[in-house]
């Protein structure tokens, strides 16, 4: 990637951070508010955005499908469902058991979507999206059913499901950031295999990458990043879908640049979305998940339209 494009990417990130630190009813001159209030929240948005952007880039590559992302594949729903069950079981958000359970939920849901799509036929077409939608809908219904039957805490859990960064626990933020960074680093070690997978499983095999193994590795890394993001902010959609597409307009499609650029781009995107959500509608606050869906759903339609014309 050329140097000026790297600079542009980081300029966008810096602008998003600046917006996130400066936007809010208390203005931009109150150092206390900026340091104690907006800084932790900005860091949370950056971590969640980076995790989701990273997961999106990995899924789109390993599945050779530009319509995949953790939200559409059901990964986020799986993680969210597991998180809700952990809360109800009284497992603390900072405990390793919580992270393991959320990861297991994400991984299980993703493989279920993948397996359903495999049954239905080719992976590169809409069947993967359909399978993901089915898995997501089922898991969301399961969560809703659970929330209706337990009255206590059901509202605060509902808001967790809807996604947002209102309350961030420092312990969770640190643990999740470490997981996301580790997943990103591990993915970078295998960028070449991800590029091979982007040509399809048969081609990947003949280029020297074992498709079955690479699929499990990249699913695991993407699920780790997604579940760490969900642990902080619940279900936030479309960051993983949009970021790699926007980044590809700027950089080469190779995973070597796409992986880090998607993490940086996702971080910038979510920081901006969260800042918009908590400052534009003052005194009310609109969760970042809602802002992302507002922007992401039309984007998804545009992608479908673009794909149907075979110019993706």
């Amino acid at each position: 990637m050329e140097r000026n494009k790297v600079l542009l990417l980081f300029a966008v990130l810096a602008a998003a951070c600046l917006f996130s630190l400066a936007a809010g009813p208390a203005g931009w001159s109150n150092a206390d508010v900026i340091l104690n209030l907006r800084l932790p929240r900005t860091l949370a948005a950056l971590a969640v955005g980076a995790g989701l952007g990273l997961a999106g880039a990995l899924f789109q590559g390993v599945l050779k499908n530009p319509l995949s992302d953790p939200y559409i594949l059901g990964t986020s729903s799986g993680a969210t469902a597991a998180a809700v069950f952990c809360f109800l079981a009284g497992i603390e958000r900072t405990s390793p058991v919580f992270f393991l359970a959320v990861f297991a939920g994400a991984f299980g849901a993703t493989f279920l979507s993948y397996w359903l799509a495999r049954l239905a036929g080719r992976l590169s077409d809409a069947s993967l999206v359909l399978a993901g939608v089915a898995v997501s809908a089922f898991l969301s219904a399961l969560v809703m059913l659970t929330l209706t039957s337990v009255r206590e805490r059901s509202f605060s859990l509902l808001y967790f499901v809807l996604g947002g960064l209102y309350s961030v626990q420092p312990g969770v933020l640190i643990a999740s950031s470490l997981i996301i960074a580790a997943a990103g680093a591990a993915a970078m070690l295998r960028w070449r295999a991800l590029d091979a997978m982007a040509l399809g499983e048969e081609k990947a095999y003949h280029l020297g990458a074992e498709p079955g193994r690479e699929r499990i590795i990249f699913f695991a890394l993407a699920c780790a990043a997604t579940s760490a993001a969900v642990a902080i902010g619940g279900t936030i959609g479309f960051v993983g879908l949009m970021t790699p597409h926007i980044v590809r307009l700027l950089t080469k499609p190779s995973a070597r640049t796409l992986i880090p650029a998607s993490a940086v781009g996702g971080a910038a995107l979510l920081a901006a979305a969260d800042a918009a959500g908590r400052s534009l509608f003052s005194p009310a606050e609109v969760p970042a998940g809602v802002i992302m869906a507002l922007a992401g759903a039309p984007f998804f339609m545009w992608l479908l339209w673009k794909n149907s014309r075979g110019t993706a």
Partner: protein
Amino acid sequence: MKTFISLLALCLCAAAPARAERVVSLMPSYTEIIFELGAGKDLVGVTNFCDYPPAAAKIEKAGDYLRPNVEKVYSLKPDVVFAGDWAGASSTKQLALLGVKVVSLPQERKVSDIFSTIRLIAAELGRKAEGEKLVHKLSARLGPVPEKPLKVYLEEDTGGWTTGGESFLSDAVLHAGGVNIFAKEEKGYFQAAWEEVLLRGPEAVILLSGTGKEFISRPMAGSLPAVKNGLIITALDRDAFSRPGPRLFAEIARLEKLLHGKK
């Protein structure tokens, strides 16, 4: 023989004048009011949320207040159904089309609106005298509003979910000697930005869910006057305070004591 007896019983019932009313309440607060009016035994259907008084829990459930189960309500053959005019408008319309008498009651935006609700229900049940008695009893509990109201942040659900001036809760806080920091917002239930809460500096905080420990752990919560005053109130009964029914008045009195009792 058995069939004959049950047939006979059926005929007798049908022939008897329909004095005993069959009432369905589609709001927990209406259920509480109906019990207070002494008509609890006439209730044949309530919402899933109606759990007070304890006797209400044993009554047939007919869905929740936003989405009542129309078929269930119809099958209970009610003489009258009380519903909030703001919730489930389409289902009340359906019930009306089925020939069920539905009384749509306006949403309470002030504490005094609860008196109108009581009077409307009492009139419908032919218990006007009991209604007036109840209104008299409840309004007597509303003492004079304290002179120096405290700025109050009222959190209904964890995550900044509070209420603006559109809800009777703002007025309830006022009667207890507080001013909702979001009273001027023309909103009902909404999520307030945390920074906004900090900016408006409430002198007391009422939490209807969650824990005081969680609240204090939020960023910069320590800078709030409420925390310095030690006025993080979690002792209110969530249901009693958040339903516009008879129990609210005792909660207002409790809140007043909590807010101003330490003087």
